[in-house]
């Protein structure tokens, strides 16, 4: 089973919902597996950027995004604020 990622960077979670788990392919070749680790880190970065932008466009606050990602508000703000401002995203400072 593979986990599919569409062109908007959104993971198709249906396979998670059915089986409650991701079955990673058994890595037979160590070099391929290690390259996979590198690619997964890059994919995680790309997904984070895509989804944080979507969240902020949909009105999430920095504390909400930070809590969802398990990092501090300062960390998520430092990492994403300039990028989102440059993209014209209206950033909310407080909830409500």
């Amino acid at each position: 089973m593979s986990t599919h990622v569409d062109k908007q960077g959104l993971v198709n979670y249906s396979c998670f919902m059915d089986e409650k788990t991701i079955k990673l392919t058994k890595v037979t070749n160590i070099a391929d597996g290690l390259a996979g680790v590198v690619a997964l880190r890059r994919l995680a970065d790309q997904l984070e950027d895509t989804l944080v932008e979507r969240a902020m466009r949909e009105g999430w606050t920095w504390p909400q995004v930070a809590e969802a990602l398990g990092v501090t508000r300062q960390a998520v703000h430092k990492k994403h604020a300039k990028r989102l401002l440059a993209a014209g995203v209206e950033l909310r400072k407080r909830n409500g």
Partner: protein
Amino acid sequence: MVRKRITPFHSVIQGAREEACAAGSRTIEAEHILLALSSQKGSKAKEILESTGLDHEAIRDALNCEFEKSLLAVGIQLEDSEFTSRSRNPDFQPRFAQSAKLAVHRAAALESKRIAPHLEPIHLLFGVLDAKAGTVPRILGIIGVDLGELRDRVEKALSLIRKH
């Protein structure tokens, strides 16, 4: 005010930084140096790369292919690798990753005067190609480059530089 001369070596490093930014990468990797070398007009490094089929587009395509193949190796299938279009921080400065640092160190180790004015893009090409593992050897394998022959040509070019 004294303006610092931009050497071809520095120009490749700046190019690698731009390649990393364009790819949305938070770090400058060895493959970004390779991409920059393939864009360095008039350089011996670009000439050697192109003669073995390694132009900018071929390297870019191989990088996308390697990314997808590496994800497949751990069970992740991308339906479209072009989903990377994301907003960019115009002020963001990617930092050097270990793969790029190693390439620069290998380049510098070729000459006794390990400072940039004595180093050319071809030194960097040697440094990038000398990697034993990682993304660059993998994309060269995908393209089907004869790495031994490519290294020989780079070493010959380096020996010509030393004679002058």
